[in-house]
């Protein structure tokens, strides 16, 4: 479609995991499916018809809370998860039918570092390069360069167990880049990193982006999404809710500051009074939380507290958010990101 070639294109992508057996189910998973066509027992719907198109050279952020389907999406795009239905094309190849072609063109940074623990840090990179047919000398040179950029060159000969979590995560980034993939996938790449490590990763991603590499990353960090992404897709319950540049998304955020009042009971009782206050553009309830969008910033807090008390509720906590991706996100999904 269009003039720009798609690096990633998914059509009606669905993934239903088999119902977890008696063992514990992954936390925060969306509700079970009500038994699709031919399904004997309900499974866990992770993706529910996801349509996504990412252009070549884009730095695309998938933004969503835990359990929204981000990891499943990246899993399918990187050939590690089989879609239940729908299809996905990555770098021109179908992820199910041409998985080998896809793997040849992508680099993947997992959510949790999973280095080869029998190899040292440098060997992790060199062997990964060897799986991609890169000669030893080239691989060693690239490994050194990447380790240097990521500030772990002194750890090259260390066992991976001697690297901190953040250092291991940076090693994963180096591993994903050593074979110079066309598309780089990262699943929450900065989760375990300290601020310093996070900046190093952002720096490297920007540099890779400038060199024209397509980057697809998932995150539930607003700042990361806002600062890095050319375009963001907001996902929840396995669906794409919105996709646009961070600025345009922010412009779509409902007017004003979001004031959230945590109450001692169901918040719907307060909605009529709160919604009628001058300066409140919108008020809604989410269980015991009252969400009010204020055109006058925090000035409306006393009036909102009075409204709550008049409705028989006590205010236990107050949270104020200026218009941002976060307020947009809350207005779309009814919940916070983390």
């Amino acid at each position, binding site marked *: 479609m269009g003039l720009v*070639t798609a*690096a990633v294109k998914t059509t009606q992508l669905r993934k239903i*995991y088999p119902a977890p057996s008696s063992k514990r189910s992954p936390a925060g998973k969306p509700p079970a499916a009500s038994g699709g066509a031919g399904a004997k027992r309900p499974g866990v719907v992770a993706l529910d018809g996801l349509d996504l198109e990412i252009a*070549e050279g884009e730095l695309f952020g998938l933004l969503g809370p835990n359990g929204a389907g981000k990891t499943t999406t990246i*899993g399918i795009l*990187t*050939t*590690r*998860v*089989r879609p239940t239905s729908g299809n996905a*094309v990555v*770098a*021109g*190849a179908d992820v199910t039918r041409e*998985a*080998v*072609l896809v*793997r*040849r*063109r*992508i680099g*993947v940074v*997992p959510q*949790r570092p*999973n*280095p*080869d*623990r*029998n*190899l040292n840090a440098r*060997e*992790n990179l060199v*062997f*990964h390069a*060897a*799986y*991609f*047919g*890169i*000669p030893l000398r*080239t691989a060693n040179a690239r490994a050194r360069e990447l380790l240097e950029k990521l500030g772990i060159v002194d750890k090259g000969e260390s066992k991976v167990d001697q690297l901190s979590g953040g250092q291991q995560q940076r090693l994963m980034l180096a*591993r994903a880049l050593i074979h110079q993939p*066309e598309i780089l996938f990262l699943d929450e790449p900065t989760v375990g990193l300290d601020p310093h490590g996070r900046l190093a990763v952002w720096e490297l991603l920007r540099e890779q982006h400038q060199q024209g590499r397509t980057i697809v990353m998932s995150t539930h960090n607003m700042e990361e999404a806002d600062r890095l992404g050319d375009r963001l897709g907001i996902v929840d319950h396995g669906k794409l809710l919105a996709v646009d540049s961070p600025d345009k998304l922010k412009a779509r955020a409902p007017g004003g500051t979001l004031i959230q009042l945590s109450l001692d009971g169901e918040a719907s009782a307060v909605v009529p009074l709160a919604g009628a206050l001058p300066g409140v553009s919108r008020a809604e309830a989410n269980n015991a939380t009252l969400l009010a969008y204020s055109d006058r910033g925090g000035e409306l807090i006393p009036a909102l507290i009075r409204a709550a008390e008049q409705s028989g509720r006590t205010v236990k906590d107050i949270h104020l958010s200026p218009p941002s991706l976060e307020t947009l996100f809350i207005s779309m999904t009814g919940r916070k990101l983390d």
Partner: protein
Amino acid sequence: MSAIPEKVHAAPPGAGKVFYALLLRDLVVNRRELPYFLLRTTLQPLLFTIVFGFLLPRMSFVGRAYSSALMPGILAMSLALSSMQSVTLPMVIDFATNALEDRLLAPASIRVVALEKIAMGILQGLAAALFVLPVARLVMGPIDGLTLSHGIEIAAVALLGAATFSALGLLLGTAISPQQIGLIFSAIIGPMMFFGCVYYPWTGLDAVPVMKYAVLVNPMVYVAEGLRGSLTPALPHMSLAAVLGALVLLTAFFCALGLRSFERRSIA
């Protein structure tokens, strides 16, 4: 179907090249762990050798002829169990920690990764047997009827036996959770060893006909009997043709199941 122009790649590796790189990785890792590997896989057979092949004959509880029956059995046990364990144990851990991911992302079919594991298991089984053979011979002293003149038969049995057990190791490695790893030793290796014609020849079971046919489900029987047939051909043993046929079938069977199970575990 795609308008994306082919990017410049340093000659994308074929399946063979990926296989070779995976094998190289395993060789490097295993060379470092060689002493542990030998200790893990050959200590038990050697202890059996000392007790049954040295002490008991000295005490005259068993005759000298027993060594001839025992030697191929001990060798079969080393070969089979090291093949199996070399594949199973690391795989159980790798699946639990997701550490296999960098290999599952290699640009080749998932089956290449699994087949490389089988190949590595075969090499490790052969290495264990090659280590045990001279040591056992040293402990037991001269063994009546032992000959290395049937090289092709020995090689065929050893290779197919190692392949059968590596493929079985693949199946177990994909099917067992880390919490159940102890079960491998108690529920699988134990019965396999004791009812695998390791410590007695299959023809000896003529005395207990039910057992003679019941043990045929145990793959170890064919490795032990095959090595008897090729290392001590003058002594009673199962027909080599039957042994080789059974090992080919078992290898194919375990490979098919193991590969399917591996793919299921690898792709969610």
